[in-house]
């Protein structure tokens, strides 16, 4: 079942909340509204014929106007892979966690929270994962500015070459 | 040593007023000899083990210091000697300092009863075996002290593991030695050796099936008691960093290693004395050997060769086998080794009684067991030949690299 078949199948459940299939370069995907995430992924995971039981990764993308979350799902039974996207506002990037459906999602969501600052509701353990606990800011955002120092340690280096 | 002191007293005609001084002096000299022997053995074995390990692992091993790297052990010892003796903050510093000496003394004290030849022995106690089992308990105390006093969770876990393991494995060690005590009828190591013949089929290991099995039970449990692979859980470097000696450095750390390598000789020597005929020379009666200085020296060499062969086996095992888990270790001790050794005691009693009425059976059993072990040794040799032949890389089979 490729992406267009999945799309028609899912469209029956959520006719309003799902965009058309978009091809961007070699990759095809469709957008969904963030509020239906749990129902959508439940359908995708458990509906006979789809059975996308393996969440490969969640990528958070800073699109300048908004944040995008990319979900990649595998179906080992039918041997295919799909990509789904959703948009979140920059001011209030909140979405429901799907870590109760996919255990793998837990850490990917933590990573998205840490590096992009997206907040996942109902997440069991939403902490920073890569950065230290006291780090300020979310480094993968396009408007991220590195602080001058971290606990008194300067983050930039004196330019030696210019001196001579 | 009392015999030698009295001989010296007689020879020089020293009056009884000064005899105490002479006896103390003789014992002091012997103690020095034992300490030197043990230390040299520990040092040289550390080099030897690393060379063997290198061969087994397709690498060279230490070969820089002196001929074939022989003086490596001395270099390492010197290095540790000059290192700073770090005592971490917040440790129980008295216990921390004292623990290595407990371990060292515990192992070294066994040299009091371990014989070298018919007359050269610290003290031929009539409770020799019991003394060995009792005195090695000092090692447990030392390791537990080291683990506790270091004030680190890893050392504590290592210390507790090691205490559990060593105390448990003292039981099968003692029981498997009892199997031999029954036919021997004595606890003195010298008397046990004296009762065995020089030829292999006269050894206690082939006395009856019970003693035959007891040898392997003893060997396994002694490995576990000495914390050697596959039972080196207390210092399992992949789990507990380095176990009870994590926080030690310099000479104190070296004392633990000293004890470990000395313990190799102790394991080998006890097995040799109790099961493998000790210093007996085939075809020469005990009285003749005891009277001649040269034959005593030959006996010493024979004893050493037998013990070293066993040490070799221990080293092989260490570099071949993985390590057990703590629960598997305890299961092996309490569910298998202890019941097995109790059965072997019964078997030994049975055979000892039967041999009184049927003396020819004794010889038959001995010869059958001897042939059986020859077959096992032959199979082992065949496997070694097979493995060497099978793998094309012959670089590491050269005599010296």
């Amino acid at each position: 079942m490729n992406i267009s078949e999945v799309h028609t199948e899912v469209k029956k459940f959520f006719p309003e909340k799902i965009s058309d299939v978009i091809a961007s370069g070699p990759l095809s995907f469709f957008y969904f509204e963030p509020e239906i995430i749990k129902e959508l992924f439940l359908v995708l995971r458990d509906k006979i014929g789809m059975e996308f039981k393996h969440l490969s990764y969640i990528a958070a993308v800073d699109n300048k106007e908004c944040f995008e979350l990319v979900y990649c799902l595998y179906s080992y039974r039918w041997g295919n892979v799909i990509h789904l996207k959703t948009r979140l506002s920059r001011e209030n990037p909140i979405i429901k966690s799907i870590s109760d459906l996919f255990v793998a999602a837990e850490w990917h969501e933590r990573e998205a929270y840490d590096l992009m600052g997206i907040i996942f509701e109902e997440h069991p353990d939403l902490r920073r994962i890569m950065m230290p606990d006291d780090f300020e800011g979310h480094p993968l955002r396009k408007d991220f500015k590195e602080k001058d120092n971290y606990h008194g340690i300067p983050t930039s280096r004196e330019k030696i070459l210019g001196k001579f | 040593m009392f015999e030698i002191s009295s001989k010296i007293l007689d020879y020089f005609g020293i009056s009884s007023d000064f005899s105490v001084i002479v006896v103390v002096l003789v014992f002091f000299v012997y103690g020095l000899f034992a300490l030197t022997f043990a230390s040299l053995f520990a040092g040289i074995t550390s080099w030897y083990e690393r060379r063997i390990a290198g061969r087994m692992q397709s690498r060279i091993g230490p070969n820089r210091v002196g001929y074939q790297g022989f003086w490596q052990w001395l270099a390492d010892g010197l290095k540790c000697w000059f290192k700073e003796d770090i005592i971490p903050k917040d440790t129980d510093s008295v216990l921390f300092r004292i623990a290595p000496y407990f371990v060292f003394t515990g192992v070294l004290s066994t040299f009091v009863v371990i014989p070298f030849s018919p007359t050269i022995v610290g003290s031929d106690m009539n409770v020799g075996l019991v003394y060995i089992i009792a005195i090695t308990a000092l090692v447990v105390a030392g390791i537990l002290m080291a683990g506790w006093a270091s004030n680190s969770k890893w050392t504590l876990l290592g210390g507790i593991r090691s205490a559990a393991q060593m105390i448990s494995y003292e039981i099968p060690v003692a029981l498997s030695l009892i199997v031999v005590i029954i036919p021997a009828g004595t606890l003195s190591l010298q008397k046990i050796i004296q009762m065995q013949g020089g030829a292999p089929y006269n050894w206690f290991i082939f006395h009856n099936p019970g003693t035959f099995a007891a040898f392997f039970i003893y060997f396994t449990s002694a490995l576990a008691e000495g914390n050697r692979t596959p039972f080196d859980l207390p210092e399992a470097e992949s789990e507990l960093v380095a176990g009870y000696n994590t926080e030690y450095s310099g000479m104190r750390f070296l004392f633990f290693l000293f004890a470990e390598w000395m313990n190799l000789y102790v394991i080998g020597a006890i097995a040799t004395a109790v099961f493998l005929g000790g210093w007996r020379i085939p075809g020469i009666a005990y009285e003749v050997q005891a009277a001649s200085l040269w034959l005593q020296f030959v006996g010493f060499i024979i004893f050493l060769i037998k013990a070293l062969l066993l040490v070799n086996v221990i080293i092989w095992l260490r570099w071949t086998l993985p390590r057990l888990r703590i629960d598997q270790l305890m299961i092996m001790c309490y569910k298998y080794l202890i019941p097995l050794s109790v059965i072997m005691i019964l078997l030994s009693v049975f055979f000892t009684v039967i041999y009184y009425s049927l003396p020819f059976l004794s010889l038959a059993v001995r010869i059958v067991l001897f042939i059986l072990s020859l077959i096992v040794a032959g199979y082992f040799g065949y496997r070694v030949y097979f493995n060497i032949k099978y793998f094309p890389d012959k670089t590491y089979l050269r005599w010296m690299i």
Partner: protein
Amino acid sequence: MTLEERLNLVKRENEILLNMGPQHPSTHGVIRFIVRADGEIMVEALPVVGYLHRGIEKLAEQTPYTGFIPYTDRVDYLAAMFANHAYVMGVEKLLGIEVPKRAEYLRVIACELNRIASHLIALGSMAMDIGAFTPFLHGIRERELINDITEMLCGARLTYNYMRVGGVSKDIDDRIIKKINDFLDRFLPGFIDEFNRLITNNEILVKRCVNIATVSADEAINFGLVGPNLRASGVKWDLRKNMPYSVYPELKFEVPVGEGFRGEVGDSYDRFVVRVKEMEESARILKQAVSQLPEGEILAKVPKRIKPPKGEVYSAVESARGELGYYIISDGTENPYRVKIRTGSFSAMKAIHIKSQGCFIADLVVLIASMDIVAPEIDR
């Protein structure tokens, strides 16, 4: 929530809190576990990652497409070839370039050599964590020969930087082919048999690994496990077979899966044996690839300044640690807009956290080693 708050949240009486790592002999790099143990039995081993976080994904946004290839080596230093391969495949898909046949074969040869090297380390270090030192050094001995080959092939022993967009950087010659054949002759019957005699069939190793941290097929899929870890649970999924890329369809090989060799399906021992079998299959692939190697170019015609059109791509390869994927967004400039790297070790760490509950401290070591964790892959 900080780490401290997380620990206080679940704290119980009579527990010791062991800090395993970042410097610990058996945590394969700088991984840290906070072990809550009740005696020898663990309540939980909480992974704390991030000690090797270098922000490769952020670096990608400031680097040209070709300039990012050396960075991909550092994603997984034990199997750098796969990271190279997945990334250049993604860029080629974006550009729509056809790679010459010879280059594809060279890529397969390099990757399979790298897979053997990586598995040798994985198996050896697992044996070492269980206490057997010798198999590790035997593995290193064989890996040294592979390193010699890759050194002749691309000039580097660990971080190769071998692949280029549109092909590979250097051609193979007869000397290297002879060396590969020599290695394969020695490896396939000889070394594997010796290794199996020495450690795979060793009763103590079997006892230590059997029925430890069993991951069932459903769990493995849900945890997001990939590669040998997934196949050990009995799921026959290999990107080389199921979503073929490069020239794998032209090569014959089996996909070994866990069958419960000595215990349950998906235990640590299955993960060990599956890796041994995978090495055999890799050697078989290598034999075919070397004999079938076609003549021709090794680099397609690629513009000097790579400027892919706007678009997105996800390209994944079957690395030694499972699916290694690059999700690349191009906005039409010389630098990628966003690169997301999907690695196998990241999800395996989560699986370790779940599976560690209730086993012995000694088993945690087996579990970490059997999942074949590599620290830079987790943190990136």
